[in-house]
């Protein structure tokens, strides 16, 4: 029997992996930087929490609604973000995060600094789910999301995202509706973050605005960058490693952000593509056998 402590860590890591995966859709696949992803995590968590504990909806409705609301807000906030690129987009998304956190904090309707409590694990077969069962539930949902991601990656949508990430202007000249595909990435990424928020609220049973601040956004982004931005498994590996790290050694917890910062700097310097990025040491080891010397060489 696995102890409750480990189950708690496992659930946390799957939720982080889901978040890293969702940010990877926006930043990795479509190439749009976001420093405010925790806002959508928070919108999902608050939607689910309020529908459940205030309006009395069951988990099975409140969590899908969390994804839907986060997706809709993602679309609405995505539209102004379309007018800006690169560093301006980074600042705009950061601003969105601060505004969303402030709304949760200062509007009494959302419970203010006290947050919202009274959220429980879902019920099935007439009883409350156990934590291991809950872990299996979110793991299955996450695996389904990964299957969807693989499908998207092989579709024209994935190709359109790749072209936008590479060169927006050239993508437009090739018939890619840049606005539409960017908004699609924002909707999907935000909706999945919202879903993770719903799962998170029901697992923690109590949420506060601070859980969804700018720091949280940076943690998510660190996982994506650390593991390998744009690759399917990279962000998940990043979430697992950076998620386990503070648990392995408790003292690290206090310096978590500092260590993440150092790791990020180190990655940027030595492995800018991330652990599983196309040019990383690990990927090169995997590809050794098919690597042909002389096939590479920079020109122009």
């Amino acid at each position, binding site marked *: 029997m696995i102890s409750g402590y480990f189950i708690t860590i496992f659930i946390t890591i799957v939720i982080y992996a889901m978040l890293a995966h969702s940010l990877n859709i926006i930043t990795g696949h479509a190439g749009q930087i976001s420093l405010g992803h925790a806002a959508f995590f928070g919108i999902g968590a608050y939607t689910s929490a309020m529908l459940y504990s205030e309006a009395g909806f069951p988990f099975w409705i409140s969590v899908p609604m969390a994804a839907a609301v986060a997706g809709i807000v993602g679309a609405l906030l995505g539209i102004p973000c379309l007018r800006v690129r690169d560093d301006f987009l980074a600042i705009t998304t950061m601003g969105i995060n601060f505004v969303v956190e402030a709304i949760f904090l200062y509007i009494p309707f959302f419970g203010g600094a006290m947050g919202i409590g009274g959220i429980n694990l879902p019920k099935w077969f007439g009883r409350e789910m156990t934590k291991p069962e809950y872990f299996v539930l979110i793991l299955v949902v996450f695996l389904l999301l990964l299957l969807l991601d693989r499908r998207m990656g092989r579709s024209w949508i994935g190709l359109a995202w790749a072209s936008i990430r590479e060169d927006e202007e050239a993508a437009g000249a090739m018939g890619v509706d840049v606005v539409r595909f960017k908004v699609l990435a924002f909707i999907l990424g935000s909706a999945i973050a919202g879903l993770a928020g719903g799962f998170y609220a029901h697992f923690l049973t109590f949420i506060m605005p601070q859980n969804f601040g700018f720091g949280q956004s940076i943690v998510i982004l660190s996982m994506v960058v650390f593991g390998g931005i744009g690759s399917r498994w990279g962000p998940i590996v990043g979430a697992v490693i950076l998620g386990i790290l503070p648990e392995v050694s408790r003292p690290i917890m206090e310096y978590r952000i500092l260590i993440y910062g150092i790791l990020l700097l180190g990655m940027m310097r030595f492995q800018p593509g991330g652990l599983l990025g196309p040019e990383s040491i690990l990927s090169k080891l995997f590809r050794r056998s098919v690597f042909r010397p002389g096939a590479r*060489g920079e020109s122009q």
Partner: protein
Amino acid sequence: MTLLDVRALSKEFGGLRALDGVSFTSGEGEILGIIGPNGAGKTTLFNLISGIYPPSAGEMSFQGKSILRLKPHQVSRLGIGRTFQIVRPFQNLDVETNVLVAYGHRFYPSLWKSAGPVRQPQFLKEVQMLIQRAGLQSYTKHTAKILPLGFKKRLEIARALALRPRLLLLDEPSAGLRFEESAQLMELIRQVRDQGIGILLIEHNMQVVMDLCKRIVVLDHGAKIAEGSPEEIRSNSLVIQAYLGKET
């Protein structure tokens, strides 16, 4: 038959008149040369036609339909392909994927069709034919960024052809190329023309322009100063003045 009809087209950036009342038409299977000194407004003209920014005044129509307010993706879906003065292939994608992006123009309008898989045999076959036409068949799986400039330019043409265009805008295809590379590219351009595709060609290399074009439009300071056959252009005093300055 007239493909593109541009009338009194103007563009101002702030107070600067980049393009000033330019009119011309171009037809199917015709290579129309567009020449002029640096800063004459040639690339601005291409950017207006391809919808990158809207004109300040004037009218443009393609196959009888106005394209005045269309966005780049709408213009390209109508059948106007383009290349860029400074090459812009999708650097980190391989040659095949670069061409596939443009091939997908028929699926992007429908979200449902966009969700379909890219790598299907008949699509790959058609894309492979385009790659072959551009002479890049040995580089199908090579990343665009490792290709030499001449190949990148051919890749841009292959990519534009995947749009099944009626009209192709080529912005200085021979710039920066060695003589042989340039000659090969010109051969490719001729083949494209022989299929009945209209071409607007911006070019600084006069030899190339005089060889390829039956008709040439000359721009200077945003305005059209001459239009005619290569012989007429060569002896036009306004053109000589624009390039060499006034005799004093």
